[in-house]
């Protein structure tokens, strides 16, 4: 039962992928423009790229994004969880209210001035934007835990720490992981932005470079690689969620 369900899922992914590439091919053939090469051309550019440093660009981009998300996660989750306490939320709620709607991406110049043009400033900008997405969701989740979940624990003499361990954390985990999956898309977009200048490494750089050289197969190969990066992290998080939140899926 479990096996055939997973198998079905893989089949549906495969069919979707074939459909996307098929459609791409069709449109490319109809348009017949150098701005839209066929998937086959891009595939060969991708293979050629693999021999020519694409992997190391992918690696550096992966590190930037993983560090960024990890940094955001390790700050946002604890703050979001303790926002369960009204005392803490008094500070967190106005902070979110004031800072979340501001477009943080415009802070790039400031961050570069403060942290230099190296990897650190790139990671910090990704982390900063993702931080708010995870914080908002985690806080909402922890604020909405019914007292009815906590009273039985209190009557059993549970300490604060035990309440977090047995109720607040497990109740919030599904929402946290959903927030993280959503944040992958944002993180990739920010990654492209921060890699599009002042660096010679990373997929964003490859895209801008191929564009300026008007080498469209290379451009698409880099874009596809970036898409694969996002897809890979998304699948990984989905796997983690299914494992950690088994109770949601039974």
């Amino acid at each position, binding site marked *: 039962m479990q096996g055939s369900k997973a198998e079905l899922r893989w089949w549906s992914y495969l069919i979707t992928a074939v459909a996307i590439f098929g459609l791409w091919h069709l449109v490319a053939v109809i348009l017949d423009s150098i701005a839209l090469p066929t998937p086959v051309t891009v595939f060969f550019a991708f293979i050629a790229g693999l021999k020519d440093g694409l992997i190391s660009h992918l690696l550096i981009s992966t590190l930037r994004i993983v560090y960024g998300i990890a940094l955001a996660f390790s700050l946002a989750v604890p703050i979001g969880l303790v926002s369960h306490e009204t005392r803490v939320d008094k500070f967190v709620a106005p902070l979110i209210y004031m800072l979340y709607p501001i477009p943080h991406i415009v802070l790039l110049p400031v961050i570069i001035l403060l942290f230099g043009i190296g990897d650190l400033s790139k990671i910090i900008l990704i982390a900063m934007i993702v931080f708010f997405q995870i914080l908002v969701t985690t806080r909402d989740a922890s604020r909405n835990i*019914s007292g*009815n*979940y906590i*009273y*039985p*624990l*209190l*009557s*059993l*003499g*549970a300490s604060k720490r*035990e309440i977090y361990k*047995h*109720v607040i954390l*497990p*109740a919030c*985990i599904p929402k946290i992981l959903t927030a993280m999956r959503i944040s992958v898309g944002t993180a990739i977009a920010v990654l492209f932005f921060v890699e599009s200048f002042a660096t010679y490494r990373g997929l964003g750089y490859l895209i801008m470079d191929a564009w300026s050289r008007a080498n469209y197969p290379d451009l698409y190969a880099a874009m596809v690689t970036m898409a694969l990066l996002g897809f890979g992290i998304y699948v990984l998080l989905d796997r983690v969620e299914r494992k950690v*939140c*088994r*109770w949601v899926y*039974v």
Partner: protein
Amino acid sequence: MIEAKSLTKTYPDGTGALHDVTFDIRDGESCSVIGPSGCGKTTLLLICSGILRPTEGRVVIKGTDVTAPSKELALIFQDYGLFPWKTVYENASLGLELRGFGKRERKRIVSSLLKDLGLQGFEKYYPKQLSGGMQQRVAFARALALNPKIMLMDEPLSSLDALTRENLQNFLLQLWRQKRMTMLLVTHSIEEAVFLGSKVIVLSPRPGTVIKTVDNPQMGDSDYRTKEVFFDKCREVRQSLDGGAI
């Protein structure tokens, strides 16, 4: 055993939940509390269990003032008693875990309890994989694992269908008779209150105050439901509820 002395609870937002509630429950007695919805029944239980502090008055259990959750007491809730992220076994053994029982002892106690409650073989299931009646039995297992002297229950059966509900009422009755526990049951079903309470306390609408205490010494058998006196008591409780102008 349990004495509630002029309990008044007003929440910070000004809502009055209870007003001057006084009653006492003897050792081994089973007491039902009934009243219209929102009459402060849950507040009353939370105060008795030491989770909430009353604005005025006090609760005395076995001669000592209740200021914090007591070890002799188990609390059972209607819907949220179980944690959906824990398996049946983890849910049932949680109380023991919090009280510091070792792994082996937890296993011994919980396994035999689950067996008694007809839950053997379901240890690894999650609550949502079980029927409502089974879920409630897991909640009872968790409470009973600690061998409490007092059980406080907040509408434990109200989300169940009629047949399952009657089944579990019989189960509770048996439990009370076997273990000679002191029980305080909050319910909004008149029949349940009369079937399970050797004393029925009727509360008024919010802020809840005791309108009447109906003594019900004839209860204690599962065929009490079919007896004339059962219907008389139900009528008596219903009349005092109506008198409270709901």
